[in-house]
């Protein structure tokens, strides 16, 4: 009875939400491409060349966090969306829900991708490729090199020592920072279990005791840029590169303990009504031109997954393109917990935030 009522309510709410979404989607047409994206894909400098070349309008909807993105899909009608940007580690979640279409490997520049960021463990499910990594970077230590000793930034011990107390911000996303805490205590991010959580929590509490704030992307970026803090735990090129022109003192290090490799992928929806155009969009984003534009998007910069991205020498320098082989060798994978461990990790994060 209750589940029937739930189903009816959910069905009506979905229909109503889909109707409202369509009304609000600035007049979406059948020929449009509807993309669920992160903010870096909303940059007109990225979308305009594709739209002009293909005579198509790309309607974008931004979301933060896989859960929120999948909720939008859940509340939409099948076929409403064509492509989605998603954390590479979360592609299996979409596949499990039956959302994604296998991608034709022969039509994608897989051979040009940095080998370490292909993430086949996540992007390939049951032998089929459901996602392709488009951008990556590191959750590591971002800092202002005029305010701190860069040599100190080669060790995570600096984050919990007294020297920079009150000068530190922590990026407010539990998975990468828990990954960093794990690295700091000598754990491998790919092997984390519930038994590791008490030690990770203790490390997080030490970081929190030194931190002035725990902020999401904009807040932590603003804090570093305005001098409110000098170090950002979890920061990396995605914070410092975009601000390099205005503030060349911002930099990042890969400390001796390592860093957490983040990566985002593109996936195509199984129910897309415009699969040809969706594939063209993915091919454009993965092309050298699209990769350069995505890497230097106005929202945030990041390393292009395609090693042949058409970046200028200056852009490569800012992204430390030539140092990538050594960075990648020292980086560890993004924590990819199962649902139960994920919940426990978030609870540890909540306790850290509430600690005074």
């Amino acid at each position, binding site marked *: 009875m209750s589940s029937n009522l739930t189903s009816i309510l959910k069905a009506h*709410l979905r229909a109503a939400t889909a109707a409202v979404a369509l009304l609000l989607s600035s007049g979406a047409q059948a020929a449009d491409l509807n993309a669920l994206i992160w903010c870096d894909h909303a940059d007109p400098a990225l979308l305009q060349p594709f739209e002009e070349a293909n005579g198509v309008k790309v309607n974008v909807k931004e979301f933060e966090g896989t859960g929120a993105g999948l909720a939008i899909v859940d509340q939409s009608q099948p076929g409403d969306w064509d492509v989605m940007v998603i954390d590479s580690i979360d592609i299996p979640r979409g596949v499990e829900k039956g959302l994604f279409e296998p991608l034709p490997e022969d039509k994608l520049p897989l051979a040009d991708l940095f080998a370490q960021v292909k993430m086949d463990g996540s992007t390939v499910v049951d032998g089929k490729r459901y996602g392709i990594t488009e951008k990556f970077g590191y959750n590591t230590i971002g800092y202002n090199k005029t305010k701190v000793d860069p040599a100190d930034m080669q060790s995570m011990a600096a984050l919990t020592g007294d020297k920079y107390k009150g000068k530190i911000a922590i990026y407010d996303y539990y998975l990468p920072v828990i990954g960093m805490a794990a690295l700091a205590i000598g754990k491998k991010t790919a092997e984390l279990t519930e038994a590791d959580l008490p030690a990770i929590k203790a490390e997080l509490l030490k970081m929190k005791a030194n931190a*002035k704030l725990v902020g999401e992307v904009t*807040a932590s970026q603003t804090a570093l840029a*305005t001098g409110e803090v000098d170090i950002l735990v979890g920061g990396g090129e995605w914070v410092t590169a975009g601000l390099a022109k205005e503030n060349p003192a911002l930099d990042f290090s890969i400390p001796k303990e390592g860093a957490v490799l983040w990566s985002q992928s593109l996936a195509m929806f199984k129910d897309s009504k415009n699969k040809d155009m969706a594939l063209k969009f993915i091919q454009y984003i993965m092309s050298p031109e699209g990769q350069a534009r995505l890497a230097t998007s106005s929202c945030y910069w990041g390393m292009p997954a395609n090693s042949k991205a058409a970046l200028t020498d200056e852009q490569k320098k800012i992204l430390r393109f030539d140092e990538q082989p050594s960075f990648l060798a020292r980086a560890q994978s993004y924590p990819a917990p199962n649902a139960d461990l994920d919940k426990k990790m978030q609870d540890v994060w909540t306790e850290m935030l*509430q600690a005074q």
Partner: protein
Amino acid sequence: MSNAANSGRALPRAGCALPRAPLPWALVTPALGWTLLFFVLPFLAMGLSSLTAHEGGGFTLANYSQFFTDPSYWRAMVNSLEVTAIVTVISVLLAYPFAWILAEQVPERWQRLALMLAVLPFWTSYVVRSYSWLLVLAQNGVINRALTSLGLVAEPLQLANTRFATVTGFVHFFVMLLTLTIFANLKQLSPSYRKAAADLGAGPVRTFLHVVLPLTLPGIMVGAFLTFVLCIGDYITPQILGGNNELLMPQLVMMQIGRRGDFPLASALSIILMAVVTVAYLACARWLKIERA
């Protein structure tokens, strides 16, 4: 005799059955439909969701028990109540004299302009306003620069990313809201009350305490209740200004959705928050009367 009697029309008497007039129902139907569609149904959906397990579905009370058994969860409620209480009290204390000056001291012809200036902050985006406060309160912000250049402090104070910053951002907004409700209340107060009090020998202070203040209490309570409801459910201000150094309930709710999409737990926390607002309403319902004597 009444005019109705004179005109020969029958007056309705209590207890008499009247033919049902369709007009009142027709007039009220849109409001009922709106409430049903955008409040009752979503609320029911949220209630059912809160009783569902995130993994695998099925009935569960675990989402509620998590709140009551995990100290970091109910700490968020305590934080929310503390911040909301502080904001409400400070806002009332600041808004009342402001509204009184506007209503009693500013000449009638300037009141409209003064009111417009008072609500000027509403014209800017809430998010932009919050980020502006962040810059004002920052280590290199206006306040710290003034304090250090005047030699009042040796080192910049930590004002941003604190509860103080959250309260400041809230108070800036809610003082204006409260000023409007209290101002409207003061303007509706007949001058006869004060004249009568004066005739009976009461001085200005006594008149204020025993006449004006009690009569404007409904306006204060309406404004305070609005402040309470809007403040306890606000996500933006604590998220931008609080620096996540403590979590408030709306932040805890949002946290469940972001990556894990745990809508059942988010729903349970939201319903608990709504229950607290309901209790607050019941506690001050006696003062939340619209009618005036």
